[in-house]
């Protein structure tokens, strides 16, 4: 000590565990591997490419952001890799690679870096990115392919009344996201729990409250197979172990985690049963993420010394409930909300159907004003059902014939027919319309039942200048005239700036005329 040496002086403790943020993240990465490998095994190389693209872009985005923002390089903490893998696992396997790329940039840049980086994001970056992609790239995000054959997800199949092998769902051998192997997720999740990476509170409360909600409101009661199908599909297991447990966006205390877990589970169930989106769990988790700061505001748990004191005071009266009261209250509120929602839905269902029926009749009247009553004979019905809802003909685009009715006047003699057609070629989705056709084949008029085109452009289809062009014409087929100033009977002037909408409508009317001439009039 005689030589001049400076000893370090700092406030204790002077030793640290070997645990680092990086090793925590590594633990998560390792526990995600079973599900990732199962995904690649089931879906082939395209899944691997998705994972690689997502991880690479996530890491690169964080690196570049740190460089540009002159921040310390935080890539080495490994959290970007975790986000990358998590994002890939909630993407369909066959998506074009720009989907994981855009998603990873959104997750890291917008959700994480913009809010202050590691530990500061208020939503799970991977799930926020998934929701962003679902909204922005709905088609790509809901196209599930296995070996190049696209099909419905197990949940969609189930919702449509089909059936799905529980074993396949468990092994992830169904149409779904890359990380849909329940077996892989369970192995990884239990490993993560055993390593102390997550606590039991969130997975248990998510799965329990979700199962309870589905059992109560799912419509199948406590049927074990149905419940297991609901649990194995739609990402609830993924959320329970890997998404909702993201420590940054979930409460710190065990009690808070139970409340939060119940919220995730119940919202997932609510959206699953009554929602219309392709996804329920992702939205449930990110909405619950927003509640985390609120849950953390609850009084902090009392130190042991204070708890004991309380227990001693209450000794002899009654044992304080082990289950936190706020959780019970929250569950109760959500359950009541769910009940109300389902009752209202049940009550309005009939009225909505009635209203829709009235609207339909009104549109029939509009296109065939002379008729008093509309009915569909058995031959009409069979002609329509023979089409089986498939695309009609080959020259009308994505057109389907939805129905046909015969219109009769007050004396009971037939006036003509109304044919309901839908074209999937609209600029903004489906266009449905009723076409009134007189017995001699003359188009009497058209009326739209679904039209969601661009305001001021495609929506002009509803204006008389466009739709009255069809009335009173007896032609084999109409032709769209993009130049305008039509002189021939079969020419229809296009709405300026909306030739796609115009074309879809012309095709739909042509299909109706064709259907009448070749199937009804014979």
């Amino acid at each position, binding site marked *: *000590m005689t030589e001049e*040496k*400076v*000893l*370090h*002086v*700092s*406030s*204790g*403790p*002077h*030793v*640290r*565990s070997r*645990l*680092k*943020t990086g*090793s*925590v993240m590594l633990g998560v990465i390792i526990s995600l591997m079973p599900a990732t490998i199962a995904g690649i095994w089931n879906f082939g190389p395209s899944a691997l490419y998705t994972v690689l693209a997502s991880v690479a872009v996530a890491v690169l985005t964080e690196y570049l952001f740190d460089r540009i923002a002159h921040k310390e390089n*935080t890539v080495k*903490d490994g*959290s970007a890799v975790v986000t990358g893998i998590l994002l890939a696992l909630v993407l369909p396997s066959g998506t074009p690679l720009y989907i994981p790329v855009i998603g990873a940039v959104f997750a890291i840049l917008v959700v994480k870096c913009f809010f*202050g*980086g*590691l*530990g*500061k994001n208020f939503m799970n970056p991977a799930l926020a990115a998934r929701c962003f992609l679902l909204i922005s790239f709905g088609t790509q995000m809901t196209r599930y392919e296995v070996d190049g054959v696209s099909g419905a997800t197990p949940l969609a199949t189930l919702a449509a009344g089909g059936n799905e092998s529980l074993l396949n769902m468990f092994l992830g051998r169904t149409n779904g996201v890359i990380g849909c192997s329940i077996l892989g997720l369970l192995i990884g999740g239990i490993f993560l729990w055993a390593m*102390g990476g997550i*606590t039991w509170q969130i997975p248990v409360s998510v799965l329990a409250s979700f199962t309870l909600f589905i059992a109560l409101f799912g419509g199948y009661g406590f049927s074990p197979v149905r419940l297991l199908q609901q649990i194995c599909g739609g990402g609830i297991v993924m959320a329970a172990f890997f998404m909702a447990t993201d*420590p*940054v966006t*979930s409460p*710190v*205390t065990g009690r808070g985690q139970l409340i939060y877990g119940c919220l995730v589970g119940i919202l997932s169930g609510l959206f699953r049963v009554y929602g219309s989106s392709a996804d329920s769990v992702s939205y449930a988790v990110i909405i619950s993420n927003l509640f985390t700061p609120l849950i*953390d505001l609850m*009084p*902090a*748990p*009392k*130190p*042991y*010394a*204070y*708890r*004991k*004191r309380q227990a001693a005071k209450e000794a002899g009266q009654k044992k304080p409930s082990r289950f936190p009261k706020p959780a019970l209250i929250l569950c109760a509120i959500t359950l009541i909300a769910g009940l109300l929602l389902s009752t209202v839905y049940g009550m309005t269902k009939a009225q909505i159907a009635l209203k829709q029926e009235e609207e339909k009749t009104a549109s029939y009247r509009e296109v065939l004003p002379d008729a008093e009553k509309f009915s569909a004979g058995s031959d009409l019905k069979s002609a329509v059902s023979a089409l089986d809802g498939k695309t009609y003909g080959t020259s009308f685009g994505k057109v389907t014939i939805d129905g046909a009715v015969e219109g009769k006047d007050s004396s009971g003699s037939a006036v003509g027919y109304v044919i309901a057609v839908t074209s999937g070629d609209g600029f903004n989705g489906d266009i449905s319309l009723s076409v009134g056709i007189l017995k001699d084949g003359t188009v009497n008029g058209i009326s739209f039942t679904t039209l969601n085109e661009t305001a001021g452009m495609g929506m002009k289809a509803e204006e008389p200048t466009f739709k009255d062009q069809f009335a009173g014409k007896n032609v084999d087929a109409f032709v769209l005239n993009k130049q305008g100033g039509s002189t021939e009977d079969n020419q229809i002037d296009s709405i300026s700036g909306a030739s796609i909408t115009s074309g879809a409508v012309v095709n739909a009317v042509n299909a109706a005329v064709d259907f009448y001439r070749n199937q009804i009039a014979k």
Partner: protein
Amino acid sequence: MSRTIKGGIHPPEHKELSENASPRVYEAEGELIYPLSQHIGRPAKPVVKKGDHVLVGQKIADADGFVSACICSSCSGIVKAVEKRRTNAGTYGECIVIDNDGQFTEAPDYGREVSCDDLTNEEIIGKIRDAGIIGMGGAGFPTAVKLMPKDPGAIRHVIVNGAECEPYITCDDQLMRTRAADIVEGLQIVMRLFPHAEGVILIEDNKPEAIAAMTAAAAGQEHVRVVVARTKYPQGGEKSVISLVTGIYTKVSELPAEAGCIVDNVATILAIRNAVRFSKPLVRRMVTVTGDAVKTPSNLIVRIGTNAEELVAAAGGIREGVTLEKALFGGPMMGVAVADLSVPIQKGSNALTLLAHDEAMDAQREMTACIRCGRCARVCPMGLVPEMMAEAVERKDYESYEKKFYGLECIQCGSCTFICPAKRPLTQLFKIAKAEIMAKAAKKPVPSGKEDK
């Protein structure tokens, strides 16, 4: 029979360095320094002045008031000065400096054997007070005060704390191995003060030889039992010890007596026995000199006031090819780092830990943002949520820290800082917060940097 506390951590123990090193006596060569404030309470008042000749065991400073402790000389020689010297708290404090004549001539009464049966309880406590005994595990609370609770009859347990959960330190282990019978004798003396108390000797299961020795010594003794606890830090903390034995968790504001307990460290119990039975004031103690930077990790019996540098030399000095980076009074969890080893061993100095590598520096480099993983809350032995407490301190919200998060219940054991994967200095923040709150309560500015640096 294996029990353990809630929370807690398992830091690397490193006890193997010195656990089998038999105690060696080291006699001080240079001057001896006695800080007047080695205990909790008011500093002692010097009763000697420069030039006085003193003997071993002679009182050189008297207790100032009820919560205070006297100091007895551990050597013979001339009082060199009463002045400010650097102490192991890292600051300068008033000290009595004695020029050691190397003779260690004992005061007339020193070592006179007394039978306990001849003493009243008041006399026993008086002898303990006059011996200057304080809690030797590091807390430094005057023992005589501790032994005078309002209602001695309400004390159910006299606990000998031999947990020694702090890494590296082995002096209590060695005391239990070599002085088991004397420790039990000390326990019997204390138990005499409390008619309804049983004696409990608490030892962690990483000290099998100490357990064997104490179990043998306690065999046949009425109302004395050995309790073995599963090794875990900070099990040796007073509150942890009480909760292990009684199941009662006490608040920071509550004394052990309120849970019906008297808790004394092994070394303290031995000092009580020496003081009561042999009229020996507290002038020596065992110190573990250890760490990866020291050549021969040792358990040294040294005179209080000995310069720490002499101890390092007695343990073979610093290992060749190694640079001493950090020197700690105490262990790595709760020990205090000193900038300079030329400071005296005090009554509460149980170890000198010399480290070649400062992990705290690495931690500072590796610090990341908090990921709210909650590990800190899981290891907190008090049931606190360090993550929330730290967040409150960081925004200087001491009100919330104290009222909402019970921040003052923190015993500053360092478990949260140890476990934190983001390497955040949690305990350090809590020390600052405590100092701020205390300062505000006392309406005076915080002593600058005392807690932090």
